[in-house]
């Protein structure tokens, strides 16, 4: 079986509008969490979020490209950056079998135009929609992709599952390339919803710390271009997309299975898919949402899968840096994981000064560390018990 490689990446988050800015911010331990400016913060449990400030260039891009929603804008910007890095020419996109798989959680489904003025960050001219059917297809049309265009919605695992599905498309369906990732937007309704569920921190997000008391919402998009290794033709691959795992807790609509059985299954399936043993993994990019229950379950699952090796594997979460970008979270984390391999460096967990002493993991929190990373794993766990894991490797 031909290896599936990552040949291009794009990313837009509260930390920056492209991949270099994103990585620079992660390594510096910066956080893009700041007071929300796009909508009314009154009555929110936390007035801060990982909000993206639109630059003049982005606004011009949206006008020129006739993009009328934040969701499509973020996705399009990330796809454009990823395709540029992949050096896939327009002719390749027209003549080859290139697909698109985009993960979205709630997207702009709750940002209704008619109530924009009082409770959303969608202004009257923005396209807000709750019909997901055209989202991927319109992006595919925009970039001239002629293969299948599919939207995946598995809550906060959407981005990770999209990468897994894209990899399977290349392995099984002889795709020449698949653009995959996730996009999502911030709005007041989501902040209200997470407030109501007590998943939103009233203070600051501190993944895996003993003081953790909730997550913080973010937005953005992350995209990867996957290709079979046979198509490289002298271009430089960033990493191998080595394996993926899927599972469902089938336990509770918002809470994870306390035993972490679904997470364990997803990680083991990804390891098996990649032909790796737990001891082969050199870095874990955590789901690390910062909620007390979620972090505890993820830690339990990691300890179960990696056994006594767990204390030697560096782990970190980027959610304190960019917020929980929901449908985009897994894709942005996949981008961060690939960058960790490229730079042989583990980014720190911003905000967290020390890990919860009850957790047996090797949490990187004071600053980045140089680390020899051959294989890295990224986890995502979503509402509805949807779990996803992807593994990236260095060696082509």
């Amino acid at each position, binding site marked *: 079986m031909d290896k599936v490689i990552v040949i291009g990446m794009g990313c837009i988050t509260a930390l920056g509008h492209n991949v270099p800015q994103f990585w620079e911010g992660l390594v510096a331990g910066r956080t893009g969490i700041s007071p929300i400016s796009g909508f009314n913060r009154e009555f929110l449990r936390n007035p801060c979020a990982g909000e993206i400030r639109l630059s003049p260039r982005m606004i011009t891009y949206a006008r020129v490209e006739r993009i009328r929603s934040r969701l499509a804008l973020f996705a399009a910007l990330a796809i454009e950056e990823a395709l540029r890095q992949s050096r896939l020419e327009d002719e390749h996109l027209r003549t080859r079998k290139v697909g698109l798989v985009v993960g979205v959680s709630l997207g702009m489904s709750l940002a209704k135009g008619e109530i924009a003025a009082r409770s959303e960050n969608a202004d009257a001219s923005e396209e807000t929609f709750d019909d*997901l059917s055209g989202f991927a297809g319109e992006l595919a049309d925009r970039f001239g992709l002629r293969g299948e265009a599919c939207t995946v919605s598995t809550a906060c695992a959407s981005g990770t599952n999209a990468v897994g599905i894209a990899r399977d498309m290349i392995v099984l369906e002889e795709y020449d390339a698949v653009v995959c990732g996730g996009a999502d937007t911030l709005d007041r309704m989501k902040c209200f919803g997470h407030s109501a569920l007590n998943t939103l921190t009233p203070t600051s997000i501190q993944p895996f710390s003993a003081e953790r008391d909730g997550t913080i919402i973010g937005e953005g998009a992350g995209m990867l271009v996957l290709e079979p290794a046979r198509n490289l033709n002298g271009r430089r691959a960033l990493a191998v997309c080595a394996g993926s795992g899927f*599972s*469902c807790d089938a336990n509770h*609509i918002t809470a994870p299975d306390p035993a972490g059985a679904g997470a364990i299954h997803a990680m083991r399936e990804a390891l098996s898919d990649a032909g790796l043993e737990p001891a082969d993994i050199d870095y874990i990019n955590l789901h690390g949402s910062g909620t007390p229950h979620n972090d505890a379950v993820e830690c339990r699952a990691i300890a179960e899968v990696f056994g006594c090796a767990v204390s030697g594997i560096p782990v970190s979460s980027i959610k304190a840096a960019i917020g929980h970008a929901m449908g985009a979270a897994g894709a942005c984390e996949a981008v961060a994981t690939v960058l960790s391999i490229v730079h042989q460096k583990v980014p720190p967990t911003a905000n967290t000064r020390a890990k919860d002493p009850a957790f047996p993991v090797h949490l990187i929190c004071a600053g980045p560390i140089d680390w020899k990373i051959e294989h890295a794993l990224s986890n995502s766990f979503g509402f509805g018990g*949807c779990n996803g894991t992807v593994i990236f490797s260095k060696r082509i």
Partner: protein
Amino acid sequence: MVLTGTGLVSAAGTAKKDFFKYLRRSSTCQEQRNGSKWLEAGQLLKHLEITEPKLKSARYMDPVSKNAIVAVGRAMTDAGLDEFQISADPYEYGIVLGTTRGACVTREAVYGSLASRRNKMMSGTLFSHCGYNIAGAMAAIAYGIKGPNITVASREDLGLCILKRARQILMRGRAHTVFAGFTECDGLSKRGSPLGEIAFVLCLESKARAVARAAVALAEVRVQDGERDDSRSVTGGVYGLQARDPAQTQSAEALSVSLPGLHALSDRYRSLILTAFLSHEPRLKDRFPAVAVASGAGSNGALSQLLYPEEQHAAV
């Protein structure tokens, strides 16, 4: 992959034969049902007087979730499966559901809850049930299905997209059985469509699994990509395949399959419905060893193909 069962809930009821009869006759389901008024979104199960314990497993559920639970349950039964079999190996069963608007009824209710609380807070219960993947998640919880659980959306080729995701899961060995289908709750009055609220689920299994449990395989289902401008890719076009090898579509004979009731359904699901319908069509089985269903004129053209077994298990 082989098709071993179909489950559904629609205004035509939950029985396959009633639904297929409706597709052939095109009379509205409401006329069949006491000539009552068009149903409001979310009233289907009440209208059909379906009450099952599974529907009470949560304090609140969106109609797409309830309908999906009923349809998955019917598909399980039709395929000869039960919860005990699933609980023995829960990760070997997966779910792929298509939806376009998902839990739109709950999303409307979320706004109501916010307004009723003077825009200061909303109901956490409602918020947790408004995600697009809620139907797949609730069906998984109802039956203990722990394998891949994917919710997808796309344009005209959504029916085929669902089949492709199911095939991926089966062929990559992520599960041996996938409940694949769709659930929508547009409301019957909104579009004037009697099938606006519907959940439709196929039980698809790997050949090996079907053989191992001696399941009745109605058809082997294959999917094949086409080109966007493939002139043959008119959604819902049906072709009889003369060749024993269904990949050889050159000898395809365009068939006139008259199903006026299909017009009550969104185009994007026609290929999936036809896959189920044709697997039960004895006249076609007599004439052709295989048939193909075209899908997705507006996206990427593609075909789903059904290879009929000559006799029980012959195809597997």
